[in-house]
């Protein structure tokens, strides 16, 4: 049986790179086998999108598998 863990995080505000680093750290500490993080938030700064785009594939969980990060925001500020 294949098993895949997705961490789900809800934020009721516009997140920035500090919040992203906090979420990454706590998820890696709490669930070492997580494969993906979905952040459902009101919005995200442009720096968050650029950080995820530049670092995608370079974040690994303690078991060595890459972590995929997805932002699901109400207001897309990636192009503003």
């Amino acid at each position: 049986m294949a098993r895949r863990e997705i961490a789900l995080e809800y934020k009721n505000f516009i997140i920035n790179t500090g919040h992203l680093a906090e979420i990454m750290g706590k998820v890696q500490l709490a669930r070492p086998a997580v494969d993906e993080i979905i952040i459902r938030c009101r919005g995200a700064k442009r720096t968050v999108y650029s950080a995820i785009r530049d670092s995608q594939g370079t974040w690994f969980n303690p078991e060595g598998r890459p972590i995929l990060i997805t932002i699901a925001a109400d207001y897309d500020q990636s192009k503003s």
Partner: protein
Amino acid sequence: MIGILAGWVRHRVFHPIFHIHSSDAAEAEVEVVSGEAEGFQQASIGLREHTLTPSQAGFHFQFREFQKLMERVRTWDSIRFMKANGEPIDSIADVSHGRDGGVDAIIVISTPTQHGSNIVAGRLRTIIKTQDY
């Protein structure tokens, strides 16, 4: 004779019309009153939501979104929800009402093949990203 006939016509024809008009006016007044009451109720609800603290508003946001997601994927057998410490979340009542800062929920996908889990994860990601609840 003509006067009697005119009185009968007034009583038989015009009186019900006037009566209907008066009842319509009463219903209209009732509708206006009920509409004002609904508006006042909605305004009070909006005021109540507006006066929530940031932590309460955050929990309401998490509660609403998580409930919609659970209803959307309720029939998917390969998905189950759990907390960060491993306790299962079977209903929305199991979501902890605590401070923000922990991992809100973990979605565990169990499928016979890795390809299947990738497909389920992609569908779930699309649902959450496009808010297709």
